């Protein structure tokens, strides 16, 4: 069984995001970039399936700027076997990404695509669903558990009000949620091995997909500043402060 795992290079989740002074976007100069946390969970799940002997090959694919190679190296260090990078300098929208992934899917013919439910930069939560629609394949989104058996995947989903379990025939698109697993740390020996694994770099434009954005961002601003809170150390102090504030 072959698994395709799309991964995206995004601003590191723990970095304090700063808006550009001209309000055209987020300042990315000298900012730490990392793999989207949901993609990391997808890689982990695919690698675990391989370690269980269920998957035979894990292929990571990224669409983005040349430094996205670093993100792919992380996927390789976690245990992916090889990687594909479709380079482009535009920041493609979910539909363009889904179309490119469709093309890669058709080349690679994997048995499953395991991917993050969303990327933390755009928060679109759309690519996986679009890919499933374009390929006309079953989809199981927001997975918190994945069991693969006999050409099928049993996927537990986190839905409003509880858990839902779906069974999908493979090949299928599975998008993962936070609680699916806790991604591993990359060991140094595996980081070194990853340097020798192949990354196939191609121009995204070669796929004939329209990459031009259809949305125009008019303005990005910071959320309004919250006034500083205080910490109280005891119930007594809390009561006194609430009295001061005239709340009680």
């Amino acid at each position, binding site marked *: 069984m072959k698994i395709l795992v799309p991964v995206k290079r995004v601003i*590191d989740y723990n970095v304090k995001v700063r808006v550009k002074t001209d309000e055209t976007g987020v300042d990315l100069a000298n900012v730490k970039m990392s*793999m989207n*946390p949901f993609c990391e969970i997808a890689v982990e799940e695919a690698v675990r399936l391989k370690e269980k002997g269920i998957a035979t090959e894990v292929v990571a694919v990224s669409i983005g700027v040349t430094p996205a190679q670093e993100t792919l190296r*992380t996927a390789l260090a976690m245990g992916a076997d090889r990687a594909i990078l479709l380079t482009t300098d535009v920041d493609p929208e979910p539909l363009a990404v889904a179309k490119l992934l469709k093309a890669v899917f058709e080349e690679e013919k994997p048995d499953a695509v395991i991917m993050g439910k969303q990327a933390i930069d755009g928060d679109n939560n759309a690519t996986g669903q679009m890919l499933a629609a374009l390929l006309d394949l079953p989809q199981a989104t927001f997975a918190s558990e994945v069991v693969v058996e006999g050409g099928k995947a049993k996927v537990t989903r986190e839905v409003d009000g509880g858990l839902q379990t779906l069974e999908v025939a493979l090949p299928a698109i599975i998008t993962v949620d936070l609680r699916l697993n806790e991604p591993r740390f*990359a060991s*140094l*020996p595996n980081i070194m091995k990853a340097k020798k694994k192949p990354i196939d770099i191609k121009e995204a434009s070669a796929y004939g997909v329209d990459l031009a954005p259809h949305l125009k961002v008019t303005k990005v601003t910071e959320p309004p500043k919250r006034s500083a809170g205080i910490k109280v150390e005891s119930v*007594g*102090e809390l009561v*006194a402060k609430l009295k001061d504030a005239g709340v009680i």
Partner: protein
Amino acid sequence: MEIGLLQHFRNFLGDEGIITDVDLIAPHLKEWRDRYFGNTPFMLAPNSTEQVQKIVKFCAQNHLKLVSQGGNTGLVGGQIPMGEILLSLHRLNKIREINPLDDCIIAEAGVILENLQNAAAQNNRRFPLMLASQGSATIGGLISTNAGGVHVRKFGMMRQLVLGLEVVLPNGEIYSELSALRKDNTGYDLKQLFIGAEGTLGVITAASLKISARPKYSVNAMLGLENAQMAVECLHALEEQTAAITAFEIMNKQALQFGIKNLGARNPLTELHNFTALVEFEGAFPDLPEHIEDALSTLIEAGKINDATIAQNEAQANSFWHLREGMSAAQKPEGRAAKHDVSVPISKIPSFLDQAEAAAKNIVNGARIVAFGHISDGNIHYDVARPENMPDDEFQNFIKDINHAVNDVVVSLGGSISAEHGIGIARKDEFCAREPKAHLELMKALKAVIDPQNILNSRNLFS
């Protein structure tokens, strides 16, 4: 007298500047590790240097004793009053000036370290002092204890980061030299007296501090090491090969086990090693990770490191640091411990660990040794936790003997019995017994000249 006294302070401090509500004072009387519980008639919270001057002048005239307090994170009990008036500096919390071109920031004593770091970062500079208490510890407290932390090898202790001070002297006069100068050889360097003086020679109200360039790239790695000798050799090998080490922290196996168990943390390495090191590298060029990876794999191939992992994102780096910085918290559920904050020459760390363990276990068989800390500057936090099945009360009886035995080892290796936390109340006996007489007399003479009435932090350092 009491009412008149309160009214006197209220007159110039206002209602916010004098606190009598016991519930509001309570958190200021309890030390972080629950080892000291103090008492005070009331707490003063001035919000300007002038108010501090008025307080101190009045106390000097009326023979009233004061204990200064910043963030109350000190670990040797020095900030806890025992009947003295508590002088809290937390309202002196303004950053007065940032001059990126001078590499200088001027902050008041009550500014919390983390806020100072953030203010520097907003100006694309950094204040390099970093320690686990940075969310509470204040500039005044950090200077008074000459705090260290994890960046000392590269950036020095607080003393090396102070350019100038503003201090209210015990007679209410002011020493003020909030200089931005790196070079100033005019007479005695008086500010040095107040740094690490644990509040005994004056009340610090503001400081000018060194800031420097912000690192562009950083790499955090966890290393699995066979023994302490390997850790020391690895430190030097990595420094030689990368010239980029900014922190090199170790935890012994027991320390890591407590961390995993009591902090709910994951071991970043697949196995438990005798020692785990957390190493931080910084550099200005994007190929830093590659250099570090090459250096580490060379050491693995040479058998100098058992295993290693490199954080792939900030979340992983934070989880490494969470483990290291949680070392004190991780010990709390394990019961009483004899704690030591010692330093020895780096080459002596392996001998120290061997000898101290033998000495401690000779006193309490089955004691659990938790050793962690900043080995890149020779500083080990060496905690001897009670055996699992020994009641706290019983273990308590052995603590003094363990302290003494461990300190004997430290001194025999040319070390210090207090590397970064200071003497305070906790280490007074050991300090006074071991410090050469001539040194002690000189210190006492200085104290007598500067604070003849002994009104400031009078129980700290010596009785």
